[in-house]
């Protein structure tokens, strides 16, 4: 009898020990003890990757990716970088490429973070700066600007391959960046219009599907307007150089952003928006639960939603105004980032920012390796779109957030 009792006690103890260890493990996981370590390594790895890909991009474009040239020019590269750091910008292309690759990194970060925020606010895996209408509105404004305020100039183009003829010395800031200002305004007005219509059609509340559909309908409408503009340009004068500048603008190009001034003009608004969005991370987390839940948790839903939409639209509009349309980055990157970091926006925002800049840098490298640096949109859409479809198909059961 006692023997049996002892056996049972032993078994009990064993089970208890096992349960305790399991519990401890669970607790550790719950506290995020392991995750913190993992995430910090992830951050470091991503940062290093960003820096490496910036370095790689600079090298690639300046030296045209030939191994012999690489060895020869590495010396020049270091020299050029030193010149840049000491303030004496040299004009051998180094200066331009360093600024440009930082701009690319910033644009990638801005697009993917705004995509992540849109997805959280509308609780929809499809929401992105492209589907809400920010990009197409910006493109329409750019097309109107090109049509009305520029002249057909056979020698220089507004958007061209060299990227240098845009520079006009001795003009005020607003004169030099009139196009960017117009595009900014257009993107902004379009998003506001989409949200207003969706709110009106959804009887007071903005449902995600409604917003998405209004966005896509309006985008289709805007697309037809742009098609019409191009149609009449081609019909009236097929040799008009504005046609190709419009098309380059639609295909996304970094050839127009090269100087430290551009870098500053992109970095300041994007940086401010990123910081504010990171400060609001917990509010986005609550919004993800749904509007009713967020309301009961004491959050002013419509105000917070509005602020978030405005911030992400600002970021997207800035990128569109400098680089044209770059699709699918904002839709694809947050999903990949969510695989790494989980749905918590505290981690999701920085991870998707870093991943976005890595992706855009790689895409830019691919497109310039194929000697078509003006078709960034094509490659980003091909890679991003196909990835997105595959992602939707493969992970329909185990998406990390319920809605994404």
């Amino acid at each position, binding site marked *: 009898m006692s023997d049996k009792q002892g056996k049972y006690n032993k078994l009990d103890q064993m089970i208890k020990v096992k349960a305790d260890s399991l519990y401890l493990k669970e607790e550790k996981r719950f506290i995020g003890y392991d995750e913190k370590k993992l995430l910090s390594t992830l951050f470091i790895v991503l940062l290093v990757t960003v820096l490496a890909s910036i370095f790689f991009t600079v090298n690639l474009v300046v030296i045209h990716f030939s191994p012999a040239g690489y060895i020869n020019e590495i010396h020049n590269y270091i020299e050029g970088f030193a010149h840049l750091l000491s303030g004496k910008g040299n004009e051998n292309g180094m200066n331009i490429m360093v600024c440009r690759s930082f701009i690319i990194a910033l644009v990638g970060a801005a697009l993917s973070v705004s995509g992540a925020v849109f997805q959280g606010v509308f609780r929809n895996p499809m929401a992105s700066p492209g589907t809400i209408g920010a990009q197409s509105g910006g493109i329409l404004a750019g097309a109107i600007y090109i049509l009305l305020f520029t002249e057909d100039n056979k020698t220089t183009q507004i958007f061209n391959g060299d990227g240098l003829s845009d520079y006009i010395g001795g003009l005020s800031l607003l004169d030099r960046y009139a196009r960017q200002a117009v595009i900014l305004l257009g993107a902004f007005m379009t998003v506001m219009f989409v949200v207003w219509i969706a709110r009106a059609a959804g009887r007071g509340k903005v449902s995600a*599907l409604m917003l998405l559909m209004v966005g896509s309908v309006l985008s*289709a409408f805007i697309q037809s307007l742009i098609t019409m503009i191009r149609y009449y340009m081609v019909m009236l004068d097929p040799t008009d150089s504005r046609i190709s500048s419009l098309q380059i603008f639609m295909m996304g190009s970094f050839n127009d952003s090269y100087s430290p001034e551009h870098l500053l003009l992109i970095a300041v608004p994007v940086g401010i928006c990123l910081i504010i969005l990171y400060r609001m991370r917990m509010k986005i987390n609550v919004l993800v639960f749904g509007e009713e839940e967020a309301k009961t948790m004491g959050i002013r839903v419509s105000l917070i939603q509005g602020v978030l939409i405005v911030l992400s639209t600002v970021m997207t509009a800035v990128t569109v105004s400098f680089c044209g349309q770059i699709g699918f980055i904002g839709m694809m990157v947050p999903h990949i980032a969510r695989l790494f970091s989980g749905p918590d926006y505290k981690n999701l925002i920085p991870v998707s920012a870093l991943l976005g800049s890595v992706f855009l840098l790689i895409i830019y490298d691919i497109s310039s390796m194929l000697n078509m640096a003006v078709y960034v949109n094509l490659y980003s859409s091909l890679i991003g779109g196909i990835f997105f479809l595959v992602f939707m198909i493969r992970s329909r059961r185990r998406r990390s957030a319920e809605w994404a």
Partner: protein
Amino acid sequence: MQSGLDLFHKNMIKDRRKTIVIFLVSLLILVLVFGISVCHRTDGTGFISPENAIKNILSAITHKLAGITKNPAGYSMGEYSSYTDYQETMDNLNSVFITMAAGGILALSGAVYQNVFRNPLAAPTMLGVASGINAGLLLFVLHYSSAALIMQKERYLYTYSCALGMLALVLAAGKLAGKRKFAANDMLLVGVVITQLVSIVITYFQFNMSLENLEMFQNFSMGRLTSITGMSRVIFVSIIVVGIIPIYLLRYSLNVISFSDEDAYTMGIHTGILRIVVLVFATLLVTASIIHCGSIGVISMIVPYITRYLYGSDFRKMFYSCFIMGAIMLLICRDITNALSAVFGFIPVGIFVSLIGSPVFFCMLVNARRVENDT
């Protein structure tokens, strides 16, 4: 109790009378618009008097009959007035009839989409057909370049096969990506993604095309170079027949689809497959009308609104009334663009429709909300 029933009957009879009156009035308007379109010269330079128009049509019919019966005397029998001849009269008649049919089927498919998705914004082009047609045209122009103008059979082959391929792609991807099988909303999401993707690729190819090809592609996609020949008429009519019969047969079920899924199940209707079948046939109709008349998809979003406002949302009534309203709207748009083209040079109907239609559509969306809030 008795008085309540009486009231109900009275109301029902009143409703029916009202519907009949509206139906007759819209038929009258259709006849009127048809008459105006027939009297309207195709180049937009003015009107023929109704008397002359009737005379022209009668002569054209005699001409045609003479052709059929091989009676040589018939060719010289007809008299044409005010600088028209047989060819112009026939062309005008043909284009009026095709416009009416296209408007009707567009409105019908728009109504089907809005019913199935229970959403006022669902447009039939959302499953990727429009970009499929554009891709087909692009391939066609790139393949045949300058010979593309004559090759009509190949054009239909390319556009139809690409549009149907896109539809199949979207359906397959939507089925794979959806959580349930054949959920309509998943199709929409996937359709939006694939449409964006394809349109960017098309833009890229336009960027690299030669100028003649680009001009030709644009003209084709605007519906400018689509001439009406016997073959295109046969294809158009046969596709309409193929697409419209299932929708006509399923018009009772379409009423049930617009309820929620649970209600439909309790009424013994399996919504999943039915939705997809109806959507595919509606998409077929839209494809035909876009290929033969240019991009006029906006009609399909506006007209169901007007129809629902006038006739109520019973799909049995919607089926006929959408046809009439769509025909009226598209005929009016065609006449206006013809008149404007004479002044400003060529204006494609699609551009006019989307320029006028989209603001109207958004206004209606906003207004619909107000009406519902009031009641």
